[in-house]
């Protein structure tokens, strides 16, 4: 049992932490996050140069990490800095899909992703699928030359600037079946996507994608026909570790900002941090964050496990914990700040917004609590530690 990071990871964390601290002010972050493309392409190149993107892929795919704890280290730091650049959808979800199921030609794109020269995104969820992995209404019908896609994809992150988009579609079975889902790699420059794009509440850009008799070639298929569900579960699992670690970093920062504030803000002649009711609420926040940290560690450790139930339960437990605690901390840190916590000018509110919005990505606390319960039904009532 060893809770220390490896030297490599510690060095990466230190480098990344320093870089973020140097590069971002809340103003420059907000400007990039709310810009027409939703992030800073300049910073993105720098992240690539620093090797941060490479840390999210394993050696086989040209990276030097890719394990649960690599993701956790990077994303916790991204969260602390409220970084809005497209790490999750581009590297973890789209890149992860290529790494997991792509053929050699498709995997070649990973190199460009790691280098920062190309970005990809992940168009799986749909207007009526909520957080379900298997509910896919978009269809792909085989033609002589390839496939014809019809359907709609919801809230596809950074679609405006993506060079590639990975689209899931049903090639057989019913709307809610695990079987029969396939994945396709589209080059956004060469297909005519119908996109209605917009900024998002906590920064970053996204769009609604409509596929209207869109034809793609045979070689767009990723992996085996109809067998995408397990790939989706795998990359979304990695996405959950990433998001949970990001949330942990956001919470840490929000806590520190709040502690700083109540140490200096005076009411009735004393710093409000001297009021016991606030002290106890801050102590609760600290305790909850430590539980979140443990949940992230559990999820990161579980990510490479073979046993599906054990792995997916740890992932759902973490996402549930993050959703549940995240809302509490967002609300409490604003409330403890009082009026100033509502001001756009302060970093705090933006951290709070990100924390709440993380619960709307890859399944919220209710979804993952339900999933944790369902997965548990396959276990005997007795569990070993």
């Amino acid at each position, binding site marked *: 049992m060893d809770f220390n990071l490896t030297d490599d990871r510690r060095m990466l964390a230190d480098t990344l932490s320093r870089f973020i601290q140097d590069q971002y002010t809340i103003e420059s972050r907000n400007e990039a996050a709310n810009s027409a493309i939703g992030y800073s392409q300049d910073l993105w190149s720098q992240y690539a140069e620093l090797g941060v993107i490479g840390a999210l892929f394993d050696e086989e795919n040209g990276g030097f990490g890719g394990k649960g704890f690599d993701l956790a280290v990077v994303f916790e730091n991204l969260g602390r800095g409220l970084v809005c650049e497209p790490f999750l959808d581009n590297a973890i979800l789209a890149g992860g899909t290529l790494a997991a199921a792509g053929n050699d030609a498709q995997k070649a794109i990973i190199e460009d992703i790691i280098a920062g020269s190309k970005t990809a995104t992940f168009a799986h969820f749909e207007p009526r699928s909520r957080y379900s992995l298997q509910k896919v209404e978009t269809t792909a019908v085989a033609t002589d030359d390839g496939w014809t896609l019809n359907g709609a994809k919801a809230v596809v992150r950074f679609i405006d600037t993506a060079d590639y988009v990975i689209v899931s579609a049903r090639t057989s079975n019913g709307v809610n079946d695990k079987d029969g889902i396939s994945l396709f790699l589209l080059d956004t420059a060469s297909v005519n996507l119908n996109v209605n794009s917009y*900024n*998002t509440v906590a920064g970053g850009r*996204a769009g609604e994608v409509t596929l209207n008799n869109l034809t793609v070639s045979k070689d767009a298929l990723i992996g085996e026909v109809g067998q995408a569900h397990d790939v989706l579960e795998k990359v979304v699992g990695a996405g959950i570790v990433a998001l949970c670690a990001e949330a942990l970093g956001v919470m840490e920062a929000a806590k520190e900002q709040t502690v700083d504030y109540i140490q200096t803000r005076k009411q*009735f002649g004393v710093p409000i941090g001297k009021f016991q009711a606030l002290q106890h609420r801050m102590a609760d926040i600290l305790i909850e964050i430590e539980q979140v940290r443990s949940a992230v560690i559990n999820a990161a450790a579980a990510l490479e496990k073979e046993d599906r139930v054990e792995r997916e339960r740890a992932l759902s437990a973490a996402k549930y914990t993050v959703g549940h605690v995240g809302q509490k901390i967002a609300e409490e840190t604003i409330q403890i700040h009082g009026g100033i916590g509502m*001001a756009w000018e302060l970093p705090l509110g933006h951290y709070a917004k990100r924390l709440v919005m993380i619960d709307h990505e890859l399944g919220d606390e209710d979804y993952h609590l*339900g999933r944790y319960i369902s997965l548990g039904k396959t276990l005997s009532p007795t569990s070993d530690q």
Partner: protein
Amino acid sequence: MDLNFTSSELAFRDEVRAFLDTKLPKRLSEMVRNGQRLSKADQEEWHAILNEKGWLANHWPKEHGGTGWTAVEKFIFENECALAHAPRVLPFGLSMLGPVLIKYGNDQQKSYWLPRILNGQDWWCQGYSEPGAGSDLAALKTTAVRDGDDYIINGQKTWTTQGQHANMIFCLVRTSKEGKKQEGISFILVDMTTPGIEVRPIKTIDGGFEVNEVFFSDVRVPAENLVGEENKGWTCAKYLLTYERTNIAGVGFSVAALEKLKAIAADQQANEGRLIDDPQFAARLAKVEIELENMKTTNLRVIAAVAGGGVPGAESSMLKVKGTEIRQEITSLTRRAVGSYALPYNPPAFEEGFNGPHIGPDYAAPTAKSYFNNRKLSIFGGSNEIQKNIISKMILGL
């Protein structure tokens, strides 16, 4: 013990409903229902409609142009307005300054300012909080120094809601530094067009502009604008803050918001069937609905006590805390209900007459904005922590 309204109360409710049915412009109620931003003109339009009916100043006695309503009638009116998605009546002139002028103003002040509130000539805002005086209001530092027939005001006010639209502001200012900090405060009316006043909007985390900072640099105000005695403004301030607020629990808002939430949850699909039938979501919904059913009666009980001659005082703190918790929980569930469609941020959809394509379902656009904006409910108007201090001292005797 009878929970039903009396027949005359029911008749009054029907009268209010009929009025809202015919006089509340559909354009305005649709904007409110859709969580869209009301302009100054929109709000003035609604004030004028109410004033024409004689129902604008429901907290004032009849002799000053008010309705003279009982607490129950006020509650019914405000509740029905919320259920009908009427715009909110701005409280600054009507519920805050009006009662203070009626109690502490001199005849000239009453006869000059009160009619102007009713007919919309003045748009008032509130100059209470300062950067260093929030919960601890009496710590305020803005000074007013007597100079001949004028006061010279210097300092800064903050969290001034709708101040960007106002031409008048009522302020608490420090006119003396002697004695306890509550003792040197005065209550004064200031024309915002006076040189030396600068209004800077504060952008809030939801991206909106509702509150402002107001800066005073050597602002010259006629001494006749002082309300009550010099250095006795704290009395006015307290009266204003504890002034009977029948609708502080916002039950009507919650009922309207809960209805909308249920409609959304019935439309959204969960893993198996509708979201409204999902066990976890259904439990969240039922819990807040039960809280609201209880709160309706709690609110009516406090009103009945007022109607029976009691003074709500600390009881309104109870309504504030629980009422805002319920309102916030409903906005939170509404955000939760729309799933990933809480993420898009589409300001045009907040504006009247938005015709562009909706992102996801049409009800999704304001959900996140409304959730974050409504965090203010437990902070402004005396934070819930301050309310708990009041309950602890005034009711529990701790």
